[in-house]
């Protein structure tokens, strides 16, 4: 978690000069002095760009943030599940998506990242793209429901970070998922 704090500090530090345009939330062209470093130092991970789009502090303050953690609040639910080869947000997940959209709408300083995932079937890179499509579908719905584009970054883990390692339908279903992660988590 220290990584998070460091990342957040770096991005908070540059936030003042990055208020225009959706592409400018963080340095996109990562070739500062830290971009080249011997692999033995792990230096390439030191850029603030690592936390693109998930930095910042919720404007709603501690009360809003704690709603995210309250197990009785729908905001504590983060997983949107998908059918095989599909990237349509099913109706049963719309209340959850809407709650997070409203949270972002009410907390304009808040940022979230949506991480798409797939089951193990299919090629690694195509699954990165499929997971991205799932994350994008959730983001699109959140924007329709009140969140703004700049608040949400979508990324994909494809099949690389399965929550369940099994080779059966139950594991696959668990892994076909997009997760909503709020800044600072």
């Amino acid at each position, binding site marked *: 978690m220290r990584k998070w704090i460091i990342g957040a500090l770096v991005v908070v530090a540059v936030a003042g000069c990055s208020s225009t345009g959706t*592409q400018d939330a963080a340095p996109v062209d990562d070739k500062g002095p830290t971009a080249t470093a*011997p692999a033995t130092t792990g230096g*390439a991970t030191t850029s603030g760009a690592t936390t693109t789009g998930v930095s910042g502090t919720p404007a709603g303050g501690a009360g809003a943030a704690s709603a995210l953690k309250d197990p009785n609040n729908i905001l504590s639910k983060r997983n949107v599940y998908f059918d095989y080869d599909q990237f349509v947000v099913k109706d049963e997940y719309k209340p959850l998506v809407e709650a997070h959209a409203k949270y972002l709408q009410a907390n304009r300083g808040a940022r979230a990242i949506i991480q798409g995932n797939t089951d193990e079937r299919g090629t*690694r890179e195509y699954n*990165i*793209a499929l997971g991205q499509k799932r994350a994008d579908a959730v983001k699109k719905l959140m924007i329709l429901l009140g969140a703004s584009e700049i608040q949400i970054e979508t*990324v994909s883990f494809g099949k690389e970070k399965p929550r369940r390692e099994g080779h059966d339908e139950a594991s696959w279903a668990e892994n076909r998922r997009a997760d909503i992660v709020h800044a600072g988590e």
Partner: protein
Amino acid sequence: MRRLIFAFLALSFLACSPARAQLTIEIVGGAGTTIPIAIVPFENEANWPLGITGIVAADLQRSGLFRSVEAGILPRPARAEDVKYGDFRARGADAAVVGSMRALGDGRVEVRFSLLDVVKQTQLVTMTYVVTPAQFRATAHRIADVIYEKFTGDAGVFSTRIAYITKQGSRFELIVADADGGNPQAIVASNEPLLSPAWSPDGSRLAYVSLENKKPVIYIQSMATGQRQVLANFRGSNSAPSWSPDGRRLVVTLTREGGSQLFLINADGTGVQRLLTSAGIDTEASFTPDGKALLFTSDRGGTPQIYRMTIATGAVERMTFEGSYNASPRATPDGKGFAFVRREGGRFMIAIQDYATRQVQILTPGPLDESPSIAPNSRMIIYAAQQGPRGILAGVSSDGRVKQRLVSPAADVREPAWGPLLR
């Protein structure tokens, strides 16, 4: 072993760590016809603990195109002039290799060999190498390359290297090894997934994707110095790197403008240029050998299919029509077609398609075969497969006849990338 762990990054990198678990290659199916070859142990070879002829024989055997014949001729001939062809003929050998090794006194060794066509009773080649014992393996691979080329007409690839990813528990490593699995070295290690290694055409650099920043980011790492650079770390996901044949640019998949779309980027990370605009997924692009076109996967037609884009004109042509899932195209270096992954009846298999005839040949059984990578002589395809709960690498000849399995004792192995010919 130089190893630094940065606890706050929960990530570590190895510059060089020998003694990785080595892949062992098993032949599980051979070609219809094989060339019987007698490789006579070289004169004085027993003076060194690591010999040469054993590695030459193993290389040739592994190709599936040769079969070792025990010559058992005494005294052993060491020079072409000493060879009595009738002795080899009597033992069923069509080809013979003889040679000698001589210490030069300065630590170096002179290795000399002759390759003989037993049927035609002619000497095909004689070569001399002056090497250190540390170079014996490399020398053996070079000798095997010469023999392979003389008898098949194709370049030998025993001197090439392969890159692949291993996963052991939660630890991922990018490994570079000789094509026979020997001499494995971890060049990157991480506690987060690594994928999509891609060799620069001169073999000096590897591009790959790492999730260490909680999203896919593309890096390029120098083989000589171990230094690495971020190639693409834009908003969203950055993945699927593949080099242009001149080594100056890469094609990558970025989502920074929405959706997974193809971009060209200079090898230093500058000059990002969008190639296409599609409503769906465009990814897994790679260059054709002439550098003029790209093969890529797109779901623009509703299912993932393979397309070819002519870079100069932007014209896009669909290449696959059968089946509901065709992905991961890799052009064969001979320019005749491409290998790819096809799903059929829920099984993912490696297939090859010829440009001229559009004919598809399914080469592997599945059920979860992926990541085809083609040898620089176009004759073998290495790919990732699932064997029980384990990820392994496997090889298949592009005619489907020769099958190999590359087994690691300890780790899940995946994402093979066959390195270039180094001349």
